């Protein structure tokens, strides 16, 4: 038997789960290392939540294994679950309890010794910006604060792995920023896995990204590689007095040109053959009235379209 890698906090192999005839998650294999923030990206219904439910022991996989810090989740669920902090899509909050009561309950359930509960609560509250709402009833808090209580609940016992399902949904931009900072901080000591369908968000917080589509992992790499991939070889170009398409296409490095609006063009080029400088030079020389030039931001949809098309093409 191979020695389990001590740096691996999550190691899932061949996870498969179906609901009736619908295959929600198909043969997903993923790993998470200590100190890493992993983003699980995908459109709604891609199987992100189902995957997370299986990783946290809320749902039994039809096939495949999960081990948390080398402890098998099926064989020793209690030891494995003690190392996980999980914030599901809907935070599991008891509205009738105060924040302190609730966090104490969460800490006790995760086997924090009675003497350490006070300290654990204080730490979690402080990290999540809940310091002055400890005595309030959870039901009276705003959505943003409830989400923070949800995160506090997931980290109160200092778990090795924190799994957050769409942690920034329903928050206002300021709160989203704070939560993102918090998640980055968590990535230092714990390892974090989060799901999202917002590409820039994952770009900002995560070290590594896995993209799911129709229950399968279609892409997995570092964020830097994803950025490359996503910028791809496309430039958005805006010209007030555009020349003919042929003239544009003749610029050195340009592979093809598409007109998207009256004065907007989409320029494709071969990777590594960036024609940005050449385009600017030609635009100045030919008085094309250049007012915009930018690498095209692909949306997640584009990435999916590309990835799935790529697969079909072999």
């Amino acid at each position, binding site marked *: 038997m191979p020695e389990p890698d001590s740096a691996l906090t999550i190691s899932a192999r061949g996870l498969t*789960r179906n*609901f009736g005839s619908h295959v929600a998650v198909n043969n997903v294999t993923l790993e998470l290392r200590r100190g890493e923030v992993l983003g699980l990206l995908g459109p709604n219904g891609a199987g992100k939540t189902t995957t997370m*439910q299986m990783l*946290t*022991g*809320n*749902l*039994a996989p039809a096939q495949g294994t999960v081990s948390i810090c080398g402890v098998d989740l099926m064989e020793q*669920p*209690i*030891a*494995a*679950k*003690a190392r*996980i902090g*999980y914030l*599901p899509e*809907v935070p*599991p*909050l*008891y*509205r*009738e*309890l105060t924040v302190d*009561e609730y966090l104490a*309950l*969460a800490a*006790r*359930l*995760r*086997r924090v010794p009675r003497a350490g509960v006070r300290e654990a609560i204080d730490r979690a509250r402080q990290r999540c910006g809940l310091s002055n709402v400890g005595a309030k009833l959870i039901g009276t808090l705003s959505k943003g604060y409830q989400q923070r209580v949800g995160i506090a*609940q997931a980290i109160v016992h200092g778990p090795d792995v924190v799994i957050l399902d769409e942690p920034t949904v329903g928050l206002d931009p300021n709160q989203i920023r704070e939560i993102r900072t918090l998640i980055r901080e968590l990535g230092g000591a714990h390892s974090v896995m989060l799901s999202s369908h917002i590409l820039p968000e994952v770009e900002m917080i995560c070290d590594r990204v896995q993209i799911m589509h129709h229950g399968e992992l279609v892409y997995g790499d570092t964020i830097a590689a994803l950025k490359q991939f996503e910028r791809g070889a496309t430039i958005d170009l805006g010209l007030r007095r555009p020349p003919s398409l042929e003239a544009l296409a003749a610029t050195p490095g340009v592979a093809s040109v598409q007109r998207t609006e009256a004065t907007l063009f989409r320029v494709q080029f071969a990777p590594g053959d960036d024609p940005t400088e050449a385009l600017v030079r030609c635009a100045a020389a030919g008085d094309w009235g250049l007012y915009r030039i930018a690498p095209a931001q692909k949306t997640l949809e584009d990435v999916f379209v590309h990835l799935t098309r790529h697969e079909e093409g072999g």
Partner: protein
Amino acid sequence: MIFTIAGKELKSLFASPLAWVVLTVMQLILGYVFLRRLDDFLQLQSQLSRLANPPGATELVAAPVFGTAAGILLFSVPLLAMRLIAEERRNQTMVLLMSAPVSMTQIVLGKFLGIFVFLLAVVALTALMPLSLAGATQLDYGLLAGLVIGLAMLAASFAAVGLFVSCLTAHPVAAAVGSFAALVLMMLAGEAAGEGLRARGWALAASLAQVLSPIKNFEPSAKGVLDTYALACSALLVLFFLALAARQLDAQRLRG
């Protein structure tokens, strides 16, 4: 771990108006029955004193109060127990327990203990009424103890059934109706099955049928008889339904 869950359950119970309403209504009804019986008892006293071995206040006042309490529990325990699992599912808070390092058995035992402690308070409140007569008359403490034990076992049986039905659905009201129906059915069918089996001469099966009839197990202790068989039947019923509940929770993790 079990006590943590039980403590949370109690806290939630008292945070909801339901527990207070149940306690209040119960006290009102029991208070009325108690005073009514006491009144009858006082009026009959002159006639009773002429008997050679007259029934005392415990028999004529306390026993009916406990009988009424049993009836009220039949209605109120399903209402209290419906929240245990079904409401957590509905509010999507069950995840907190399911992803915590806690076994299904611990969840079930914790939940059961939480509601059982509450029901013990109900039993204690019921016992206080006849106890208030202690200064005025000679109480039969043996009979009173039997009534308390019997009612506690009855409450435990009802709570176990309610907890199991609550595991079956994510709809609290459906759970309440379901467990009420199950309890009534058990009361009727348990008795009928016992009689039917005994008529055919299947003594063992007939005695086992008593497990499913909580009210029948309450009867001996209501007469002040400490019937170990009835107590064992009650304990078996509780264990049986708690085991079913734990299995049901586990099955849901598999089914999703």
